[in-house]
């Protein structure tokens, strides 16, 4: 099957900086695809190349097998939901949504019917006559979404779609976007710097750093089996451990990632395992260096003889922990994921 979007050794250079470094990326039809990375990692540049606002310095972009060098944005079967929504302030909500049909020369009655349908789809029926300035951030986002969907794009590009919304609204929209994508079956490509958002919404994620794709995979693969330290650290945060430096007989040399929530600090109440080494756990003594309150959990920094670990402790178990205290620390060797990727 031909890919919905295929970036073929695509590079984009801005002066001295290489924003994208020979990216090779295939996005399948009907996929909800996340481009994840810190700011300046090239993910937005990538989106702009697909939309056609920008052009590769080398390599090329294919959309459903069609090479796009000579295809201006207005002739690509893609549509973008902009980070700032880019709603037209001099038009009503209805005219905004109908815009894509208007410029295609579709009659007033027909395009307004389609626009009203699209507005109903994003649960904004009845907002026809409002101006964008009279809407809240969440409503503006829905209008932008409806405006893009009304043109029936084959690929919908979303640039930090939820970035400007508050947490509660963001969680709601995550669910809604996901449901919408399932229903419409359109390929969604979205850019985010929020790893939680990427993990919860995407079918597959590409993690970007310094203009390069560090890893592509399902959310589970990205989180559970990071191939490089950057991915381990950027997605969810991780303890990066040098196997040789650990001095544990069962651990081979190499680079490992250990998730903070997999480490057990002290001895949880009612732990029947005893102190026997039969369970194979790696044990050490650590001194608490810092405790950060985070609501449902505490982020505890523990200094071991050779390394420093970050541990996430559920609030219920964190009571009584004090800075300076020395405690047993343990984790299971199989929770240490060995990273095999280059650099």
């Amino acid at each position, binding site marked *: 099957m031909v890919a919905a979007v295929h970036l073929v050794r695509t590079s984009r250079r801005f002066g001295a900086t290489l924003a994208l470094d020979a990216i090779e990326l295939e996005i399948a039809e009907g996929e909800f695809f996340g481009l994840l990375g810190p700011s300046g990692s090239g993910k937005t540049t990538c989106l702009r190349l697909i*939309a*056609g*606002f920008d052009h590769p310095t080398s390599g090329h972009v294919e959309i459903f097998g069609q090479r796009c060098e000579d295809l*201006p*944005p*207005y*002739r690509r079967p*893609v*549509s*973008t939901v*902009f*980070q*700032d929504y*880019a709603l*037209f*302030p*001099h038009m009503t909500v209805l005219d905004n949504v109908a*815009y*894509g049909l*208007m*410029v*295609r020369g579709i009659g007033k009655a027909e395009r307004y019917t389609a626009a009203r349908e699209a507005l109903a789809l994003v649960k904004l029926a009845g907002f026809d006559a409002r101006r964008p300035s009279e809407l809240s951030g969440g409503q503006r986002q829905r209008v932008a979404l409806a*405006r*893009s969907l009304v*043109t029936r794009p084959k690929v919908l590009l979303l640039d930090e779609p939820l970035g400007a919304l508050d947490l509660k609204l963001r969680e709601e929209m995550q669910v809604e976007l996901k449901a919408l994508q399932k229903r419409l079956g359109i390929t969604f490509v979205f850019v985010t710097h929020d790893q939680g958002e990427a993990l919860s919404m995407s079918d597959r994620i590409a993690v970007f750093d310094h203009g390069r794709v560090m890893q592509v995979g399902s959310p589970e693969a990205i989180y559970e089996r990071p191939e490089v330290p950057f991915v381990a650290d950027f997605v969810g945060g991780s303890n990066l451990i040098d196997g040789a430096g650990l001095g544990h007989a069962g651990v081979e040399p190499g680079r490992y990632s250990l998730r903070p929530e997999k480490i057990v600090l002290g001895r949880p109440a009612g732990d029947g395992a005893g102190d026997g080494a039969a369970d194979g756990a790696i044990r050490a003594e650590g001194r608490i260096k810092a405790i950060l309150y985070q609501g449902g959990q505490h982020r505890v920094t523990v200094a071991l003889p050779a390394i420093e670990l970050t541990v996430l402790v559920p609030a219920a178990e964190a009571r009584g922990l004090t800075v300076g205290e020395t405690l047993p620390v343990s984790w299971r060797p199989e929770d240490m994921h060995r990273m095999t990727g280059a650099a």
Partner: protein
Amino acid sequence: MVPGATAASALAGAREPGFWTRLSDLLYRRGGLVLALLLGPPLLWIGVIYLGSLFALLLQSFFSIDEFSGMVKYQLTLKTYGELLNQANLDIILRTVVMAALVTLVGGCIAFPIAYFAARYARGRVKAGFYIAVMLPLWSSYLVRVYAWKLILAKEGALTWGIDRVGLTPLLDALLSLPVIGGPSLSFSYMGTFLVFLYLWLPFMILPTQAALERVPASMIEAAGDLGARPGQAFRTVILPLALPGVVAGSIFTFSLTLGDYITPQIVGTSRLFIGQAVYIHQGTAGNIPLAAAFSVVPILVMAVYLTIARKLGAFDAL
């Protein structure tokens, strides 16, 4: 002593607040007082000097002049406005309004691409260069610029010479032989007057247009293209409507400045009068203050009509 007070006095260095501190505190607490102090004088100025003189002007136009004694009769009448509507005076008004409209229209067409380039593409040094290029003419005297143009446009001037050198003299002669806009030379024709006006007021058209275009987010233009609008469509449906308040602001400058000018048409152009010259002659040598006043009411009315139409057309919707 309450703990808060101790902290406060410790903060202030345990010193009694001085005059300026107490004054600042007072003004900080009473925002209205600051507003009154800041706005009072200018409001007084606008109220008395601006609106007062405008009102006096309006009043003058409702008086008339005694044809025998040449004295102003202080009786309210519409006789002066009747005079304004005789053929000679109507010609003056029409001539001025058409000239102002053409200068505005052509000025807008020339200014827009320049403003668009400056707002969307020029960065750093190029942008600084743009500002200097646009503003530079304004640093020299208006009179100097008009006289410079008279020399450029004169029969023996640089332009005629240049046109002769590239062999386009027949074209210039053909232009000058046209009825109404032609004349013995560019500096003695409406074309000359038009060119000088266009040059003089162009910065006032470019700058507001550029400022308006600057405020149109790049993403909005991209969004138009993204939704399928060809560049021409994006221009008509998004860029132009969003820049229109700036264009209208610029056109108010060019239009009203042309309507009121009395020096340029006197130096470059035919001997036929424009409104400004008519006002100048009637209040000076002719001593017909009421007719001069009535003449000056015309640009105000024309501007009022223009702005009403602009508003009806939605020019200010994007504000």
